[in-house]
């Protein structure tokens, strides 16, 4: 096993089996993957393919049962203790009793930043996600898309280099989603973070990523890894280009190959 200095996540023959009442379930088997610094990696596949489970293994929210994985060159547990990643969940998971700025302050309070530092970081991250002026609002006063942006701001606030996003825009409508995808790319460009992004939308995966990991279920495994040839500068209408459609069709093929629709 070799780890290049650039490697942020490195998985070798990783497996995870859940023991359930109906017998063992292979959530992940034989996953080999490298995520390098500055990558935008999407994980795509039907439900049950283990894409969220893999993200949770990186975050030390699940423990693998076989193989090995390093995050920032250490175990996921140490990476978590070093606060080396920010996690964005499917739901915004904002604490309803805290205002938006207090929600963003939550990780900063826990990590012991000074009040002045907190204030500066809240201001900066609110600006990053275009929510300046909404700091004093409570979560219920914001739309779903704004709430999810606030949760991204919260994940960015403590300056982790790695951002783990688990279908963050899955519950939002198409128009809001397009807008947030565009903003996310800009943010990635500005902050030079490494992003792991779980989705089940092919256009979203192709539009955002430098690397697309196609996964399939029963057992959860990686069936294809596609390096994107799209330029870093990506206006929304790049989705009409032949290059884009070509990558999208390769992703679709990968999904079809790994999944029998007759089931």
């Amino acid at each position, binding site marked *: 096993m070799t780890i290049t200095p650039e490697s942020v996540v490195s998985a070798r023959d990783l497996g995870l089996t859940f023991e359930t009442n109906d017998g063992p379930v292979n959530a992940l088997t034989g996953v080999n993957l490298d995520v390098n610094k500055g990558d935008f990696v999407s994980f795509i596949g039907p439900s049950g393919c283990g894409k969220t489970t893999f993200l949770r293994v990186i*975050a*030390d*929210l699940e423990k693998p049962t076989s193989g090995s994985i390093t995050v920032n060159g250490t175990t996921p547990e140490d990476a*978590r*203790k070093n*606060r080396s*990643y*920010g*996690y964005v*969940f*499917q*739901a915004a*998971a904002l*604490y*309803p*009793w*805290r*205002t938006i700025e207090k929600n963003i302050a*939550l*990780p900063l*309070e*826990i*990590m012991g930043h000074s009040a002045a530092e907190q204030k500066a970081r809240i201001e900066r991250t609110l600006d990053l996600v275009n929510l300046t002026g909404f700091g004093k609002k*409570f*979560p*219920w006063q914001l739309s779903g898309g704004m709430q999810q942006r606030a949760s991204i701001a919260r994940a960015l606030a403590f300056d982790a280099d790695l951002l783990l996003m688990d279908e963050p825009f899955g519950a939002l409508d198409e128009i809001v989603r397009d807008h947030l995808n565009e903003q996310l790319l800009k943010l990635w460009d500005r902050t030079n973070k490494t992003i792991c992004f779980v989705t089940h939308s092919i256009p979203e995966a192709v539009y955002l990523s430098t690397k697309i990991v196609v996964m399939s279920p029963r057992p959860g495994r990686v069936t294809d890894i596609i390096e994107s040839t799209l330029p870093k500068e990506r206006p929304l209408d790049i989705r009409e280009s032949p290059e884009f459609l070509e990558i999208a069709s390769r992703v679709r093929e990968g999904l079809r190959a790994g999944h029998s629709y007759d089931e």
Partner: protein
Amino acid sequence: MEKPGLLRESAFPIVVVILVVVIFWYAAALLMNHGAALDSLKLKGIETTPLQGWLLSLALERPLLPAPHQIAVEMWNTTAQLSVTSKRSLVYHAWVTLSATLVGFGLGTALGVLLAIGIVHNRAMDKSLMPWIIASQTIPILAVAPMLIVVLNAVGISGLLPKALISTYLSFFPVVVGMVKGLRSPETIQFDLMHTYFASSSQIFWKLRWPASVPFLFASLKVAVAIALIGAIVGELPTGAVAGLGARLLSGSYYGQTIQIWSALFMAAFLAGGLVLIVGLVEKLVARTMGAKPERMAA
């Protein structure tokens, strides 16, 4: 704009119910006291019209069922017309009971919250404690109260504290049950978030579990404060206490002073209502600072 409408909407049904109750009450008082009224007239040998008989049944000194206005007059006389330090003042007796209630409520709330914290954080406490807590509430308080007071008296503790402890005994229960549920109420995703921050248990408690449990706490406190009052009154009954609403009830029943009993009962009801109302107001204030939606606050 909405408020007056809301007020009218909620006030109207209440007024109707009160009216119906008062009408039935007067009818019942007339019927139940009529016999006694005729007897007393006969005893005095006064010849009367039937109307006078009926009127007297609403003005007896010791009626079977006092009429509402008799209770109102008695309450007025024993509250507004007397100094609050007078032993006959209902305000004085209410305060004696209220002070024990508040001490017991405070202790019960603290005990309930502490037990809930233990149960939520410690598996052994979770498994071992809950059955005992539930069993404690199946024992009739009327049986426990005299023993507790006698035992405490024997070790030199008397006065307010034994009564307060009976209030505690009753009021900690809803707080434990509510707070165990409340402290466990955050969603998995909210706990996961804390896990990704590598937050300590005390940070998880103060920043997640505690604020999430606040609505549950207030729901419990409303029940707890009302039964704390009952606990204090029950604590006054078996001991021959000389002061407090329980003492008024007891002495009233010894001497057949039904009007006194009923006015003490009403005082207890007003106290309980007032206490629940205060808890509700504090709840609304807290909810507002914690950013609850206005609709939820109105409910």
